[in-house]
């Protein structure tokens, strides 16, 4: 503490309030006005036409959100023409993944022209940071995040491990030619 006392420099500002008239002081008409605003909003926002409402919140999940085209949603594994998994277990995605959440076990395929496929492909969605790098890294257009669905809440930790078959169930065919155009 310094020996010298500093001067008190607090400035007190006076707020000049508007004088209320008699009607205002009884509160009754003002109260009715307020209720009117509330009721107007109530009826406006409960009308069947969603577009005409004033609300910013949505009745999720009955009412679906429209996501932008490039929204990175639930992962999916794309399929070959015959419905088998497109992925060749090159592990580019699991290598690039900054969250380290893709686990792949490669295996030898009976079909010699496929040669290698993932016998295990698990994404730990709770660890995933939705960066989309796995999609960029894939040389085979085998993994995508364009399902338009966001990840649903999980009740248990184990449910967040999305396995290959579940990811494939959201999959579809790809335009890319597997093995390259001259393959």
């Amino acid at each position, binding site marked *: 503490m310094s020996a010298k006392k500093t001067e008190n420099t607090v400035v007190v500002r006076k707020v000049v309030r508007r004088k209320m008239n008699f009607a205002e002081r009884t509160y009754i008409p003002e109260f009715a006005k307020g209720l009117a605003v509330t009721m107007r909003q109530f009826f406006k926002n409960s009308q069947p036409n969603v577009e005409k409402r004033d609300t910013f919140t949505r009745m999720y999940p009955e009412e679906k959100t429209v996501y932008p085209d490039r929204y990175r949603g639930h992962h999916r594994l794309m399929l070959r023409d015959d419905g088998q998994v497109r992925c*060749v*277990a*090159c*592990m*580019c995605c699991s*290598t690039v993944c900054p969250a380290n959440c893709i686990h792949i076990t*490669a*295996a*030898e395929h009976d079909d*010699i*022209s496929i*040669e*290698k496929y993932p016998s295990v492909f698990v994404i730990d969605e709770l660890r995933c940071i939705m960066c989309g790098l796995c999609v960029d890294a894939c*040389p*085979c257009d085998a993994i995508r995040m364009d399902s338009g669905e966001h990840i649903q809440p999980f009740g248990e930790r184990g449910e967040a491990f999305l396995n290959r078959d579940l990811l494939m169930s959201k999959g579809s065919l790809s335009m890319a030619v597997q*093995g*390259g155009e*001259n*393959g």
Partner: protein
Amino acid sequence: MAKAIIDGTEIEVDKGTSILRAAADAGHEIPHFCYHPALSSPANCRMCLVEVEGMPKLMPSCYTQVSDNMVVHTKSERVIKAQKAVLEFILINHPVDCPICDQAGECKLQDYYIDYDTQDSRLRSQKQNKVKAHAIGPEVVYDGERCILCTRCIRFCEEVTETAELTVVERGDRAEIRTFPGKSLDNDYSVCVTDICPVGALTARDFRFKTRVWLLTSTESVCTGCSQGCNIHLDHFRNEAQRYRPRFNAEVNDYWMCDSGRLSYKELHADRLLAPVINGAEANWYEVCRNTANKLTKAVEAEKNIAFVVSPQASCEDLLIAKRFTDEVLKTDSLYLGGKAAGKADGFLRQADNNPNRRGMEAVFQDRAFKPFSDLIEEIKSQKVDVLYMMGSHVPVDADSRAEFLNALSNVELFILQTPTQGDLSEMSNISLPSCTHAEKSGTFVNFDGIAQVFQQAFAPKDGALADGEILTRIAKRMDVDFGYKNLSEIQDTMFNIPEPPPAEVAEETQTEPSAE
């Protein structure tokens, strides 16, 4: 001697040196596929073409010898054009299935494409289809489409193993590598062809699709399969060894290693003992050291017969501690020889002695006499051994004698076993102590030739395992003997301290990196 100027660098080399080697000495890399320093040069891939002043055509540098006053350009316009042409030619029928190919990441074609080519494919026709995933031998898989026909594999089988199983069949764009009729690529060194194959045409069945090479961490180590002690790269991922790869050492194994040694990495993880066990119950190290120390103290005070089995599988560092442990703690001189039973030598790398460190053990224990293991069995049978302390769970005897040994063990009052693995022996022991494998510690092995070779720790010990020397040091401390070593290098300084004559054969680690591979 011949003097030449390569890319402006003046260099003097022995007569007969190829331009490629001379350029490597001068610090200029020349790309090459078919040339391998340990094999002959057929000059068939043409990747190594260089311009030599005064010569009308480009010369293959792997084959052309340096002559006096030669002026060589390795990066001239003509050379670059030729390199691009060669790569484009190779890639005509190459499938470029890198996502599937195990070689991706250590592939010469990938590397050279990035370094010397990087042009888009101009090919608009269908590629030749050839054999895929063909079992060319029990340990090796061949992919005809990826093969660039450099013939390194053929020359390896002709010149190194001299078994000559492989040849080229067909001509032109249908040419492929095959075994001669009735043969299969099943010599004892067959997996070496996967190391020298510059592309992913030959892959090891064991390593196939296991992981990707860019995920591996490589540690310089030594193979423990036999007393040759081949230098290896121990490639591991997430605390697990994935493969062994030979590491060049001209004095020991050159560029090679045998198949059984290569697959011996599996022993590192099989049936590991994970925690100390006292009479069937798991314990922690504090408890087990105190318990063992108490029992051993009583045994020493009562002047019981204590037998100690020394393992030539252990490193010199651990063996020095073991020597001091027997001298200063157990005060016993009944030392017996453990380790693995002898196998067969094959005249090339594989030695009959399956223990990596017998010479090291002899050097550390100097003039101490070891009794053979069979004597131990006899002595246990005639109840002459009260306490048995064993390093490692290998016994250098045949199956019958081993069974005899196991039966006789009930005669022993106290059996302490220090081992990395679980098994019948650890079940019969009163106390079993989990020890590290050589991948989990650093140390020194001395091979059959007397060359001391250092190996490095690759990953952390599995669960509760400790290095052999560390276990003995902890027990000794509980028995009031402090060996006084603070770190490994202090042990290394004293372990070969033999007064006279100096150990000429125990040379320092001798290694040179290959200048060109």
